[in-house]
C-alpha cells in the first residue's frame, strides 16, 4: 500500500442522482441536459469507473482445485457418515432401563461424599481463595532444570565459606587480644628499673587469660601454637 502518498480527504460532493447511474460509462460525452453539480458528480463517477476498470480479474490459483477437492471429500464423508447414522435401526430401550436409571440416581444422591459440604462451604465462604487454590492446583508441574541444582550447590558452598569466615574472624580477634597482652608485658619488662633499686627483683609476672566460648575446632594451628607458648591449656 502506498501510504506515503495518502490523499487529502475530498470535500463533500453532491451525490450522483440514481437516474444517471446508466450514464456512468468509461467513455463518451456528458449529455447536454446534465449540468452543474450533477455534471461534476457524473464526471467523478466516470473517474471511479475508469479506475475500477483498470483493475483486472484475478486468476484463481492452481491450489484452489485441490482445496475444493478436499472440501468436497470432507463434506461427502460427513454426509455419508450422517446418512449411515440415520439408516441405523432404532433400538428400543428395555423396560427395566427406567428403573435402573432411577435407582442409580437415588443411589448417587444418597452417596454424596461428606467432603462436598466442606468444599461448598469453602467455595461460598472464600470464593477467591478457593478458586485460586483450585486453579493453581491444576497448573502443570514443571521439572526443575538441572541448572537449578548446580546453582543451589554453588550457593550452599558459598554459605559454608561465609560461616567459616565468621569463625576465622573470631579466632583472629582472640589472637589479636593475646598479642596485645604480650606486648604490654614486654613493654613493662623493658621499662627502666624503679627508683627503689634496693628493692628486691620484680615479682614474676603472671598472665591469666580466659577465653570463653571458643570452639577448639575453629582454632588455627597458629592459634594453638600461641596458646601453647603462653602456657595455656586446651
Amino acid at each position: 500500500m502506498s501510504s506515503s502518498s495518502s490523499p487529502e480527504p475530498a470535500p463533500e460532493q453532491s451525490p450522483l442522482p440514481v437516474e444517471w447511474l446508466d450514464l456512468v460509462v468509461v467513455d463518451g460525452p456528458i449529455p447536454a441536459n446534465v449540468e452543474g453539480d450533477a455534471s461534476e458528480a457524473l464526471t467523478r463517477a466516470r473517474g471511479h469507473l475508469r479506475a475500477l476498470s483498470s483493475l483486472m480479474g484475478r486468476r484463481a490459483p492452481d491450489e484452489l482445485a485441490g482445496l475444493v477437492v478436499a472440501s468436497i471429500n470432507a463434506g461427502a464423508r460427513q454426509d455419508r457418515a450422517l446418512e449411515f447414522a440415520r439408516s441405523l435401526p432404532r433400538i428400543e430401550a428395555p423396560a427395566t432401563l427406567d428403573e435402573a436409571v432411577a435407582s442409580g440416581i437415588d443411589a448417587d444422591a444418597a452417596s454424596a461424599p461428606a467432603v462436598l459440604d466442606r468444599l461448598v462451604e469453602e467455595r461460598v465462604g472464600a470464593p477467591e481463595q478457593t478458586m485460586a487454590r483450585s486453579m493453581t492446583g491444576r497448573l502443570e508441574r514443571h521439572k526443575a532444570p538441572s541448572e537449578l541444582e548446580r546453582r543451589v550447590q554453588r550457593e550452599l558452598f558459598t554459605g559454608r565459606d561465609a560461616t567459616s569466615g565468621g569463625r576465622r574472624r573470631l579466632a583472629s580477634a582472640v589472637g589479636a587480644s593475646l598479642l596485645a597482652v604480650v606486648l604490654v608485658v614486654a613493654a613493662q619488662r623493658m621499662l627502666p628499673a624503679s627508683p627503689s633499686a634496693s628493692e628486691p627483683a620484680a615479682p614474676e609476672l603472671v598472665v591469666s587469660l580466659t577465653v570463653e566460648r571458643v570452639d577448639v575446632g575453629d582454632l588455627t594451628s597458629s592459634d594453638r601454637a600461641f596458646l601453647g607458648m603462653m602456657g595455656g591449656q586446651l
Partner: protein
Amino acid sequence: MSGPVRIDPDRDLILACQAEPEAGFNGAFRQLYELYKDRVYSACFRITGNATDALDASQETFGIVYRKLQSFRFESKFSSWVYRVAVNAAIDIKRRAGSRRVTSLDALRGGDTDTPSGPLQIRDEVTEAPTAAASRHELESDIQSAIDRLSPKMKTIVVLRYLQSLSYEEIAETLEISLGTVKSRLSRAHAALDRELTPVVDRHFIERNPAL
C-alpha cells in the same frame, strides 16, 4: 425475487451435476468449477483484499455449492446464487480475519496468464514493461485500498457492478434486494467512492495524464 422465468445458461451443466451426486470433483462439477473459479476468486479477492482470504472464501464457496447443488431448483439464476454464496463467504471470512493480516504487495500482483474464462479479462504481465508494471501495481494497490475502506455493503455492490459487470437485475437477485435498493445503494457507493477513490483518480489519471 421472482420465480423461474428464464432458462438458466448453466442449466444443462447443473442437471448433469445433479444426475451424478456421487461423482465428486471428477464429473460435471469439475466443468462448473472451471467455469466459475476465476469469477469467484476474483470477487472474493476484491472483497477480502488479499489472496489468502480470497482462497479460503473461494474454497468455502465451492464446498457450499457442491453440497447444496442437489437442492438447487432454478428459482434464481445459478450465477447469481454462486455470487451470493461467494460474497457471503468473503464478507464472513473478512470479518473473521479482521485486521490480523496485512496485504502484501506481492499478494496484490496478478496471477498467472492463461486463457481468460467468463467475462473476466486477465492481463498478460509477461509482456508488460517493468516500469509500467510497477506503476500499475501502485495504482492497483491504491484502488484496492480505497475499496477496502468501503463498508461491506458498498464494497459488495461496487465489486458486483463494476468489477464483475453484473446487471442491476443480477445484483438484485444476488443480494436479494429490490432493484430500487440496488440503485440507491450504488448511488451511495459513488458518494463513498468520492471520498476514497477520487483522490486516487486525481493522482493517477489526471496528474499523470493532464489531457484527461
